[in-house]
């Protein structure tokens, strides 16, 4: 497969997943705050959302005020924010458009429909009047695309690069939202419930654990091998795919990913929880980024960041 094609597919997956994760975060934050008293806590909560998606600095630069409405608008529809949901979907579509000949017609149509839907909607009004419906719709839209991927795409390298991007994004986003919560040293049960809900894991948590324990939460969201949105689950999936993609078993990306997966696999949640947890999560997050960088270096190298210069000689000119 063309290196450029592989990169486009990888980013199609990443952008799609990011759109969904952002919608999930916004949804649970919005609902949790409905139950809480407004004030300082609210500002903190929205700041957490921005930090979880890695856009806190950009938001500050944008000059917007830090409140629910403004953050939601920024993360849903701001055209200047490349991480907004609408821009993520647009980017996913642009990337997919660059490799359309490889995509099944149904897949392209599902993605294009989602894009057209978000383009034609008055998203600002939706954010104000029916945020829950909007976030639900985005989640469903992305999931229907992923459903088509799952149900129709031949398991070839094209699919693998798409899924690799998606899973690495999911893992990274998962670690990050855990880390942001953790940094608050917050024992508020509502906070944790919101985090669980954002990962579609609240039901699973209740069935498995009777009471709220930080270890249980880490065990589920970070280390579960059965919860589809846990970090370990995503990394295992990514590793399987990468093994099929990379011919060389000693490739850097595969080694980095295998090591990280193994460490999480055999980690003890009780040891993890404690004052060192936040920095552990930071390391995990950085390692996931290293894996993505290694994949890029191994597979996406094509002429893109090099300047084109022309050479010529002038007769009679002084040699300079």
């Amino acid at each position, binding site marked *: 497969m063309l290196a450029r094609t592989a990169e486009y597919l990888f980013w199609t997956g990443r952008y799609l997943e990011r759109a969904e994760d952002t919608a999930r975060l916004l949804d649970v934050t919005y609902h949790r705050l409905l139950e809480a008293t407004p004030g300082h806590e609210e500002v903190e909560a929205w700041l957490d959302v921005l930090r979880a998606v890695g856009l806190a600095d950009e938001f500050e630069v944008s000059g917007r005020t830090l409140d629910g409405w403004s953050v939601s608008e920024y993360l849903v529809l701001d055209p200047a924010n490349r991480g907004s949901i609408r821009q993520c979907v647009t980017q996913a579509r642009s990337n997919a458009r660059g490799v359309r000949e490889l995509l099944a017609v149904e897949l392209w149509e599902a993605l294009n429909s989602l894009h057209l839907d978000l383009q034609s909607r008055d998203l600002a009004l939706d954010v104000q009047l029916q945020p829950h419906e909007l976030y639900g719709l985005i989640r469903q839209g992305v999931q229907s695309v992923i459903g088509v991927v799952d149900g129709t795409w031949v398991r070839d390298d094209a699919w693998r690069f798409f899924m690799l991007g998606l899973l690495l994004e999911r893992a990274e986003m998962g670690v990050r939202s855990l880390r942001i919560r953790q940094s608050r040293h917050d024992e508020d049960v509502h906070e944790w419930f919101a985090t669980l809900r954002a990962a579609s894991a609240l039901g699973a948590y209740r069935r498995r654990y009777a009471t709220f324990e930080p270890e249980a939460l880490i065990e589920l969201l970070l280390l579960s091998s059965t919860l589809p949105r846990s970090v370990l689950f995503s990394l295992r999936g990514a590793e399987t795919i990468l093994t099929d993609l990379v011919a060389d078993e000693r490739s850097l990306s595969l080694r980095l990913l295998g090591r990280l997966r193994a460490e999480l696999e055999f980690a003890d949640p009780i040891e993890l929880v404690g004052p060192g947890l936040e920095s552990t999560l930071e390391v995990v997050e950085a390692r996931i980024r290293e894996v993505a960088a290694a994949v890029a270096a191994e597979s*996406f190298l094509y002429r893109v960041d090099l300047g084109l210069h022309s*050479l010529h000689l002038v007769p009679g000119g*002084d040699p300079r």
Partner: protein
Amino acid sequence: MRFDVRYRTVFSYDEQVSESQNELRACPTTSETQRLLDYRVTIQPAARVFSSVDAWGTRVDAFGIRRPHDSMTVIAEASVETSGSVMPAAAPRLEALRQKGFVDEYVEYLQRDRHTDFGAEIARAAAEQVDLVAPDVIGAILAIHRFVGQTLRYTPGSTEVGIAVDDVFAGGVGVCQDYAHLAVAMCRSVGIPARYVSGYLFTERDDVGSPAETDAVVVQTHAWFEAAVPGAGWLGLDPTNGQIASEHHVKIGHGRSYDDVQPLRGVYLGPGNSDVEPVVEIRRVPPIDLWRSGANVSVSAVDAVPADLPLGVRRYSDPHPSGSSIRQQQLQQQQTGAVRTGSLRSGHDLPERPAPGKRNQHTRT
């Protein structure tokens, strides 16, 4: 006269260059007044050279380097024997320039291009020179040749490649390339077919004084021009040195202008700037052979050329100015037909769109 020419150019780059693709036009041509005896090209880092002859009859050596390098050396070595051009005995009149067969045969050397796109000032000056000697064609060519030599002052580094010929004329300074383009433009403006010539000049006016035979002199690649004389063929003249192209002139090739016969053109991929150091060593050696050539010019007779064909009227215009972004270039492609849209604008510098992935990496850090 027999010469050994050693052309050596070193390109050095500030940073590593990952790829370079080039075309070299350094090989002396074989013509009625010149014969190539031996030619060899060496590239460092080593590269496979593919040689061919272009539409103008010039040998082209194409090569590419596809591994990181911080300098590139191109060496072309030639042995050549020259005899210098002779002033034609014929004395055609200006009317002969309008003959259909003549115009048809030389039409490419009557057009304007980006280096010879003359304005009214140049045309007026040329017409004045021609009037002085009318109706003699050779006289007209020589008058233009002299005029160019007197009008321009040789000033190395005074002009950049790509300068408009009108600006050369107005500025009054230039290098040999500018002399040649101005002479070509003036000839064409009065209907005399003219072409640009690239080559080497063996000159004894070296820094160290007049060298002895078999000593090498260090020179630059040189440029002069040739004008077509009805009934007699091409006449080579070197306005920079105010002389007819002599046996000291080693011709590489000719074209409509510099672009057709650039000594080296190419592109490289990588950051940073390049420095270039071209050196030509030319050495006179004793002749080994007697000169003779049977080359002739085939003439195609076409009677369909209209009598009043206003050739050369079209000014040169670049359809797409350079410096456009990838996005603009993608828009500009001529997809003839059904889905071509109306707003193929150019000239606005749109921001270049990075690959989707790259853009994203920035938001993440």
